């Protein structure tokens, strides 16, 4: 109830329109959605545009240091969105974020990942951090779906707390095909290109 209201409210504010360009919304496969990051609304919007049934088993991967700051942020991340909080620093063998993401995928959950690692200020897409590569190696059977989030960095830019009600678009691309023998930088570059290729013609930042 609370979660479906949150999804409705998010869609109302961000006026979002999903474009299923390269994959089927109804498909029940496990997926890692990887998207560009420019706003606190990114995760909630991507999540809200999924079909209700897929929403229930899709978790965002978020930075523990940021969302564990206080009870309120922790309540939103873990209580409302069932986020998988991972540490960005001090990675130990026991607390390895890749292991925890792989565990969640093995339990049949899908994940939402922002491989740039932080929110962009101007809407450009930064180079990807290597987590996506390690995750792809740990779980090669999971579909990696690029998702381009358009305009959310204008709805709620980094450093602001009040959103303006502009219209946004969520473009779902084709899952990344596996390329054997690819090096890490090659893979990350290919993943980033798959994402930026989804930017609609005539769009701006």
């Amino acid at each position, binding site marked *: 109830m609370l979660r479906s209201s949150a999804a409705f409210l998010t869609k109302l504010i961000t*006026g979002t*329109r999903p474009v299923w360009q390269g994959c089927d919304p109804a498909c029940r496969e496990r997926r890692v959605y990887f998207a560009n990051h420019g706003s606190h609304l990114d995760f909630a919007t991507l999540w809200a545009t999924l079909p209700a049934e897929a929403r229930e088993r899709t978790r965002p991967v978020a930075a523990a240091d940021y969302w564990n700051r206080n009870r309120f942020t922790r309540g939103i991340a873990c209580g409302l969105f069932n986020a998988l909080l991972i540490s960005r620093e001090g990675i130990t063998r026991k607390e390895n974020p890749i292991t925890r993401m792989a565990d969640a995928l093995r339990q049949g959950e899908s994940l939402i990942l922002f491989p740039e690692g932080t929110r962009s*200020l*101007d809407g450009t897409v930064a180079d990807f951090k290597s987590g996506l590569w390690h995750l792809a190696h740990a779980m090669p059977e999971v579909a990696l779906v690029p998702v381009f989030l358009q*305009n959310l*960095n*204008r709805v709620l*830019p*980094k*450093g*602001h707390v*009040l959103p*303006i*009600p*502009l*219209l946004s678009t969520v473009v779902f691309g084709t899952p990344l095909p596996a390329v054997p023998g690819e090096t890490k930088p090659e893979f990350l570059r290919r993943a980033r290109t798959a994402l930026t290729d989804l930017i609609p*013609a*005539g769009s*701006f*930042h």
Partner: protein
Amino acid sequence: MHWSSPETRQVILWIAGILLFFSILGRVLRFRVKSEKGLATVSNLIARVRAWWVMAGVIIGSLLGGRTATEIVFGLISLLALREFITATPTRRADHQALFLAFFAALPLQYWLVHTGWYGMFGILIPVYAFVLLPCLSVVRGDTQDFLARTARTQWGLMVCVYFISHIPMLLQLPFAPLPLGNAGLVLFLVVVTQGSDVLQYLWGKLCGKRKIAPNLSPGKTWEGFIGGVLSASLLGASLHWLTPCRPWQAFVIALMLCALGFLGGLIMSAIKRERGIKDWGTLIEGHGGILDRIDSLCFSTPLYFHIMSYCFGN
């Protein structure tokens, strides 16, 4: 405008009858037309007519609901239009506060002024105070890239989507001698003539359009469509003169001006779309595009109509 008056029921029945005619026409054409291009046109026609039922229902429903209901409905139309306008025109992070105030202060305040009937402030809130204050909020952020263009876009959005549109519910505040449908008749005249002009231009263009009038801006518009549509919509206006305090010939001239301005307004909004490389403002109304695609001609004709009515015919 009350359901109990026979004139109101008559107008509503006419509008419903015309829409019903096009609904049936669409169904008939779907069976008759065979070519692929023809079928695309017919399904677009059916989608458009379906959207017209909703739009006519919303406008008439709000007018039947009274002054406050009309103000709320046009306030929401302004909000959705501004949303489409700002979405399509580039602004930067430094404009966030200014845009927030445009949406959540300027817009509600303008409609609150309509509600209270404070005409002096209604006329200057956006052209003067928003003009002065919004760039102040952007400039302190120190981002100079495209500064004039960004500021102008926000101001234009407010003028077109909020200021102009807010003149429609303001018509309900004008002092007039009693009219058959009250002041709601003035709103109906404006909406039926301008929107009717769009529809008639489309129909005339489909029937006998040949010479393109503005191929760079709006490739679908032709001289035949323009002349046929504007003249027939003006005749429609003359026949609806009894909704207003005008004589038939006066209503014809006013309708002619509304249609001409509405046509140019449509071209202006098309020019902005072409510059931005988009085809439609949004996806809200099936067959039409966004709400701004539907009201673009209304935006530019509304202030003139308001002033003619208030200065030439008001008490």
